[in-house]
């Protein structure tokens, strides 16, 4: 492989990891809250990103990503925990049946207009992950003096993963809404935990794979909480009926 090819493949693979995280957030939030404002938020994130790249250029490599990861991670963690808990309660109360259909609307009754939550979540996911991709691309490209192949690698990863996300959209929309809220909640919580602590310079034992382990951990705990909630609900029902 030539040097340019090596840089392309390296930038592609490294960017693909970040792009997967970005697309999971956009598809998950879109399926749960509706795609209109989620995609607007994602578009806003891309616009901000484009401006930052245009202004920063190669100097992007000097951006301290740690504080940004901490801020975005902490916000995702706190919001993700809300959906995580609500998902547990809803799945415990209603199970998985009969919840296909409209997106879960968390806004107060009668509220209309922009869904800021969906837009904000997508904006943050796209701008942070996009910035990480830009930094990867610039760092690899500038170090190897192959900025062109590096940029192409990053763009190719982003386009491919976004296309896969779009193709998977109908599949995600078939997931019952209560369960989807729990799933997105636990994914946001896992990403938030990972990014916030990474922003604090923690060394994850398995590196990026710890995102998967965190998601499994939160999923297992959710399963336990759903069982406990169902039992508690059953006890109340028995007392009320007697």
């Amino acid at each position, binding site marked *: 492989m030539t040097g340019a090819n090596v840089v392309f493949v390296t930038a592609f693979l490294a960017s693909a990891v970040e792009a997967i995280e970005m697309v999971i957030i956009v598809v998950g939030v879109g399926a749960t809250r509706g795609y209109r404002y989620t995609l607007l938020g994602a578009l806003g994130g891309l616009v901000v990103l484009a401006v930052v790249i245009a202004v920063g250029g190669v100097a992007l490599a000097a951006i301290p990503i740690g504080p940004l990861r901490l801020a975005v991670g902490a916000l995702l963690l706190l919001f993700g925990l*809300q959906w995580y*808990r*609500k998902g547990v309660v*809803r799945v415990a109360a209603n199970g998985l049946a009969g919840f296909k259909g409209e997106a879960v609307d968390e806004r107060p009754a009668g509220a209309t207009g922009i869904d800021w939550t969906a837009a904000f979540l997508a904006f943050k996911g796209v701008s942070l992950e996009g910035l990480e991709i830009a930094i990867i691309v610039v760092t690899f490209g500038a170090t190897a003096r192959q900025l062109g192949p590096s940029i192409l690698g990053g763009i190719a990863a982003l386009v491919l993963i976004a296309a896969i996300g779009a193709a998977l959209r109908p599949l995600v929309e078939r997931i019952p809404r209560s369960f989807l809220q729990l799933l997105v909640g636990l994914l946001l919580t896992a990403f938030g935990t990972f990014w916030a602590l990474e922003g604090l310079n923690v060394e994850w034992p398995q590196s990026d794979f710890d995102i998967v382990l965190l998601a499994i951990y939160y999923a297992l705990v959710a399963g336990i909480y759903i069982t406990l909630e169902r039992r508690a609900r059953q006890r109340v029902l028995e007392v*009320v009926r007697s």
Partner: protein
Amino acid sequence: MKIVLRVIVGIAKFLYGYVVGDDLLLAVVMVVGLAASGMLIAGGINAWWLVPVLAVVMTGVNLVRHRPRTRDVASPVEAVGTSAEQA
């Protein structure tokens, strides 16, 4: 001036709902947990475990606090619906 104030109040309300939601205790404990993790990491302890543990403990505390109680519900239908509605 009035419009600016309304926008600021609107943003503040949105951020409060987004970050804190309906459980101030959970949000405060998680922020304190992150701060404690930061201090432990700065002190040389790789405290990646603290926040995940706090997250599930505080979720459990929240679930117990919002669980429907027999004295609060009058009918089986209400018993089933109560905490799902709270969610």
